[in-house]
């Protein structure tokens, strides 16, 4: 069994395919590196509230933040359409502001992910808030962030 094609034509075609596949994968890897393509919101990093408090998150760039929505933190601002709530990783809290209607599954005490930019006061101005459709589900990133705080086992999280 020979792996190499016998005819010149086939060999050339094989080369072409290899080059294409190789080029494609390289370019994809390069392009998906942060900041290199796609413009705003293309690729965003996930930060836990503790990361943000520690100043690890860049300002004015799209970031993802996730955690548990703090009980009692949700409130409607006076304009009637902006909602404010806090997410926690059981160590630090970050306030999130979102203009619009929150997803139906959004609930205090449950996991949520918000995407947006940090403003000067350290408030995340979200353009998307995600909550799970399935109440048993905890987004892996949120879970991980919580596990980092090593409180997962002691605090009975509503999963």
């Amino acid at each position: 069994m020979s792996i190499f094609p016998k005819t010149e034509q086939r060999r050339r075609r094989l080369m072409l395919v290899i080059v294409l596949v190789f080029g494609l994968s390289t370019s994809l890897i390069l392009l998906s590196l942060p900041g290199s393509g796609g413009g705003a919101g293309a690729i965003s990093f996930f930060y836990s509230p503790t990361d943000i408090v520690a100043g690890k998150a860049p300002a004015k760039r799209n970031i993802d933040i996730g955690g548990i929505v703090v009980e009692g933190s949700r409130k409607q601002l006076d304009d009637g359409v902006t909602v404010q709530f806090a997410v926690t990783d059981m160590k630090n809290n970050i306030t999130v502001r979102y203009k619009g209607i929150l997803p139906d599954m959004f609930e205090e005490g449950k996991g949520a992910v918000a995407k947006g930019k940090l403003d000067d006061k350290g408030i995340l101005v979200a353009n998307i808030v995600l909550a799970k459709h399935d109440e048993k589900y905890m987004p892996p990133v949120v879970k991980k962030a919580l596990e980092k705080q090593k409180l997962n086992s002691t605090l009975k999280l509503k999963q």
Partner: protein
Amino acid sequence: MLAELGTFALIIALCLTIIQAGFPLIGTLRRSYFLDGAGRIAVLVSLGYFLYQSRATTELYTLLIPALLLASTLTVFSLLGTIGKYYQQVKKLSAQAYIIRAVLLIPCLLAILYSIFIVGFTKPLVTTATLILSLTALTNAPRLRRNLFLNGSLTFAVIASALVGFSTSIIPAFVIGRFFSPATFGIMILLLIILAICLLLLVALLVIEICGNLKDIERLKGLSRYSTFLRMPLLIATAIPVLMMIVLIKIVGGYYTTPNIIALTVITILIVVPLLHRQIYGYHFAELTRSAGLGQFVFTLLALGILVTLFVNSDFSVRYVAENSNTALPLLYKVTAVWGAHEGSFLLMTLVLSAWTTAVILFSRNLPALYAARIISIMGLISIGFLLFGLITSNPFTPIYWEQVNFAGEFWEQLKRVLENAKDPSLAAVLNKFEISAESPVSVKFIFGNTGIELFTAFKDYNLSDYYTTFRRFVPEAEGKDLNPLLQDMGQAIHPPLLYVGYVGFSVAFSFSIASLMGGKLDSAWARWSRPWSTIAWAFLTLGIMLGSWWAYYELGWGDWWFWDPVENSSFIPWVVGTALIHSLAVTEKRGSFQSWTVILSIIAFSLSLLGTFLVRSGVLNSVHSFASDPERGVFLLIFLTLIIGGSLILYAFQAPKIKSIGRFSGFSKETFLLVNNIILIAVAATILWGTLYPIISNGIQDRSISVGPPWFNLYFIPLMLLLALLMPLGPMVNWKKHDPKKLLMRVLPYAVASILVGVVFYLTVEKINWLIAICITIATWVTLGSLEILFYRIRRMKTLGRALSSLSASSIGSMVAHIGIAVFIIGAAFAGINSIKKTEKLAPGQSYTVNGIKFEFVSTRFVEGPNYNAYEAKFNIYDKGKVFAVYPQKRFYLKRTQLMTEAGIHWQLNRDLVISMGKPLNTFVKNFYGQAKHELTQARRDHVAKLLKTTSWPITIKYKPFMRLTWLGAIIMAFGGLIATLDKRYRLFSRKKLATMQAPATDAKLKLLDEKK
């Protein structure tokens, strides 16, 4: 006494395994195949397993006596066979040996099922043993071919195993059965009778066997005439373990698992038999494969039917039902709730797979028998994976007590109470035994163990309610947790089934390819057979994805029709590869080239479907709608995926050198265009796959969590797709093999100019059309005109549209329609994607708001009650170009799940969609009111709310989406095009006559001989 019988049965099972182990070991002394190793491992593992099992209930030394007895029997038989003067004659007894070998499969199957179900899928060791045992089942039989001196003991083994089945299951069942209703008892008796008949038949087989040894061997050689008769007992004998399982499962309480298990068994035959095909009867067993496949479908259907019945009856003793249904749920949603979560939807997927298998079985009569059998067998292999996955990790029929951790305690308390009241010395004895087991939570093993049986025997005269109702007492909820409100919708009724039909449909193309690879021949006939299947699957997938998008749009309230969510992507990637596949198949069929590529594509398409299943159901992805995760499921799927992909690629590596490309083509030809089409589509698929998996990869490498958003996908997807669309109309126009570029240019130039003009005119005249939309319009016009060009061309020559249409083949009309569908989609996606407006405002009844010149008047709000929810319903009047439309968005509160649900109010026309959705009311009383149980809503409070609603303001989101409907319409047109293409005459009129003149793709000399003999 009966308890001892149970123990004894376990011992016999162990002995049987020893016997079973003996065969491969002895057999390999004569001929060693490279698979022998697997056999030996299997033996060791199964031995170890049964030792492990017996440890819990018996003392090891008791095993020795029966084991020795059986071993001596084996020796005697072997000696007789070897010393006897018939040896030379027996050697010729091939036909009979075939039967024996097939019979040998039974103990193997039995051991598999036995190990699976006794332990209840909880131990990894068992799963391993099972897999290895199935390997033995496959490898054992051929190896014993020449070792005919073992025949006697072989048959003995079969009988012994049947006896084991008899004693391990029926006898305890018989005892326990008396606690159940007379009907159950009757069934038990019936099972006993059937088993007895099976045993008799096996004894008959033994007699024939011995006769064959002693008498006229030449006559028996032609045993194929009796094969019909002989295969019947074989089939029934295979049914023994199945019947056993029915009983076993029944004891556990999960009545409803039965059809699933039968389907699993049947499918095992389906896979085992054709793989032994060369050695066994060939043609006849190919037929058996078909019947088995149909049987699998029937039983899987029955399983789903039972699940539906459970849902309709709200039987909350089944966990899955309790978690996903509710007594107040409307009937329709009770039915659709069946596939509302992981377990049920996987069962549905399994059913769809067997439906595809059935379709292949029904429509493959004209294929060469061996080829068809292989296809069905490979589909069976996939089905085994699906069924095993369902049974092991996600059985929807699991009774609710099964997973109750506190079960032991409560059950124990209950028993104690009964025992104390009974005050019977014999019961006290049982109590002591029971206590030992009750230290840990009561498990299945306990129930099967001798103590369990003893317990039942002891209790039969007392007033302890039967086992089943005892379990029922542990049902935590009388109402059920209710179905996720998002799924209480018509979309749930149609989207998952359609999507699965498409998803799983690629398994057919996959099976065709693998079967062809096995036969070592990939020619145009293969492509022709495979093509309509792939196209239908593709069309369904198109519809499924479209429905998903539509549903997400109006129900999930993500605010968009496509989100580039990983779950969406995992259905879309197979679609893209599937699109490449149906185009590549065209080249393979018409020109006999690209075979390797097509094979690879069909493997990839199916693998990606499986990968999608894995991603969605394993919980590795950050998606808003993946299923609740379970690592065990992920591992299983990953193994399955590896086996499928690895296996097929290895097969490909071995067989690829045999593939010969016939068609040659020049640089400018239809082949080249289709090649470019494929390259672009693969690039698209790779991009989306990369974007979907990148977060996982990045997380693994850098330990950083990231997300890849829609802008990233759009950046690569849109240009690639527009490039593809640009080339799209050219493909059908260009000739095969060679085409003159200049001629083509002259032919398309007017259309190109016209399209550009259209784009420019729109760009200049309509204010809202930016350059990107203008480009999209140009390309869409170009695709439409270019696709219709073939038709125009013919009309010019043939004068009438009718004649022109009839001169075109259905597949070219289909492709034309599908391409136009793309054009329609492009228009819709461009407008809806770029020119959509979304506004959120605080509004109260009486106020109005204007978006894009359309006035939305908030008229009123009222409180409404649904079957399982309370809601506020708003009325909006929409004033659009002098017309008034009323829409009624709702904000619902589902009481059981305490979950909110926004029902958007949508008014649509072809040129725009208007979506109104409500937030939470900005009044605390109103906000709290609808979350209360219905009986708390007194008339006075209702009146109060009605009054408050007049002034309560709401956050209201209004969306304006131009040409939204065109995206879905485009997808429907595409799917329609696909369906037209499959109506092509050359698929339909694929008659036997034509087949005879055509080369069979997997000609098998042996098979030919068999056919001739017939």
